[in-house]
């Protein structure tokens, strides 16, 4: 394949990955990795290096819009980042001693299993606001955003400890596998902390950039970030993510959750299949 063809294919697929990733709070690795490995025969390590960059590009490409719209809950995101950055460092520490195949199998199965509670609340628009108690109250894990119809949605976060635990896992797999950390972030905020779906995905969008940056140094130094692959990935994702970020405020919470459930099913299946060598 000619260099030009390769770059154009990667660029176009990355635009799609950027739109999807910015809508549902993921990094686009679910599209980027199989496109590169299965579609174009690129080595898995280069694909993971590209995926790390795609995560940061999705996060930063959508961020300027989300900051302005005040949909992202910066307090919730920053509090949870304590756990993800710690998890990323632990992941780097133990990476040499664990099998990435076993990890992918375990995390893939966890993702698929989490479809059950997710599907049960698939149509939920705004969660019933729980009373703000304990750590959530102390850390003001609460907020509000304006829906497109002009109504203000107030929400409180619950179960911050469970949220933190989910985030350690998200950081760990970012450090260990370089993929999949966005899914665990959205799941923790949606299922455990009971935030409105759009708050979960935009807050995850902020967080995945920080977590991926925490893990990026190792991939960069190892030489897994190949410029010929990463350039069209980064540019395509930046364009796609800016479209996705503009579309999100108009989307409804149940719609976003449905798209997320589909992407989650694909991501989980991809991890299991890769672990089984299929």
């Amino acid at each position: 394949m000619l260099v030009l063809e390769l770059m154009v294919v990667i660029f176009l697929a990355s635009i799609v990955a950027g739109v999807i990733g910015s809508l549902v709070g993921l990094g686009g690795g679910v599209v980027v990795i199989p496109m590169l490995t299965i579609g174009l025969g690129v080595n898995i390590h280069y694909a993971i290096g590209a995926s790390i960059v795609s995560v940061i590009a999705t996060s930063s490409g959508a961020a300027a819009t989300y900051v302005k719209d005040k949909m992202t809950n910066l307090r919730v995101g920053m509090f949870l980042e304590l756990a993800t950055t710690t998890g990323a460092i632990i992941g780097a520490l133990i990476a040499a001693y664990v099998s990435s195949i076993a990890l992918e199998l375990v995390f893939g199965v966890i993702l698929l299993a989490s479809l059950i509670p997710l599907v049960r609340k698939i149509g939920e628009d705004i969660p019933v606001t729980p009373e703000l108690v304990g750590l959530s109250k102390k850390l003001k894990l609460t907020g509000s955003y304006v829906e497109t119809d002009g109504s203000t949605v107030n929400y409180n976060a619950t179960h911050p400890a469970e949220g933190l635990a989910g985030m350690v896992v998200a950081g760990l797999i970012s450090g260990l596998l370089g993929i999949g950390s966005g899914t665990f972030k959205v799941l923790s905020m949606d299922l455990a902390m009971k935030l409105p779906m759009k708050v979960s995905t935009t807050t995850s969008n902020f967080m995945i950039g920080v977590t991926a940056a925490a893990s990026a140094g190792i991939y960069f130094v190892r030489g897994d970030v190949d410029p010929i692959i990463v350039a069209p990935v980064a540019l395509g994702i930046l364009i796609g993510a800016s479209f996705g970020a503009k579309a999100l405020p108009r989307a409804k919470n149940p719609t976003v959750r449905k798209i997320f459930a589909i992407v989650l099913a694909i991501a989980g299946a991809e991890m299991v299949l890769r672990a089984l060598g299929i």
Partner: protein
Amino acid sequence: MSLSNPDSMNNVISKVLRYGVLLSAAVIVLGTALLAARDAFSQSASLLHYDPNQIPHGPFPVTFSSLAAGLATGSPAAIIELGVLLLLATPVSRVLFSIFLFAAEHNRTYVYITATVLTLLLFSMLVTPYIPVFGG
């Protein structure tokens, strides 16, 4: 515009992110254009070669000195890598500016939380890749 006002601080963060992303995209576009001008019609296989026994695994710069050397000669790969590093810096600058945002809100707890996140982030990004136990 007063930076002690949370709303204007939010606008500053939005602008920092937007210009940071545009700058990194411009650098990557420049590198890509130079790469395409040189290699567009060559076979991609050799550029995608992955050597598991060598660090770096491919034919491109990964250290600051080799990156600087590449930039000095106008190497397309080095220019793209520079753009990627600028992109990497945007989440870091967002965390950094969030410290000022929380300070403007007089939210001391979150100034400490954010400063801790920034420390962990910089440690993980810059230090762990060079410590042998971390696989560096």
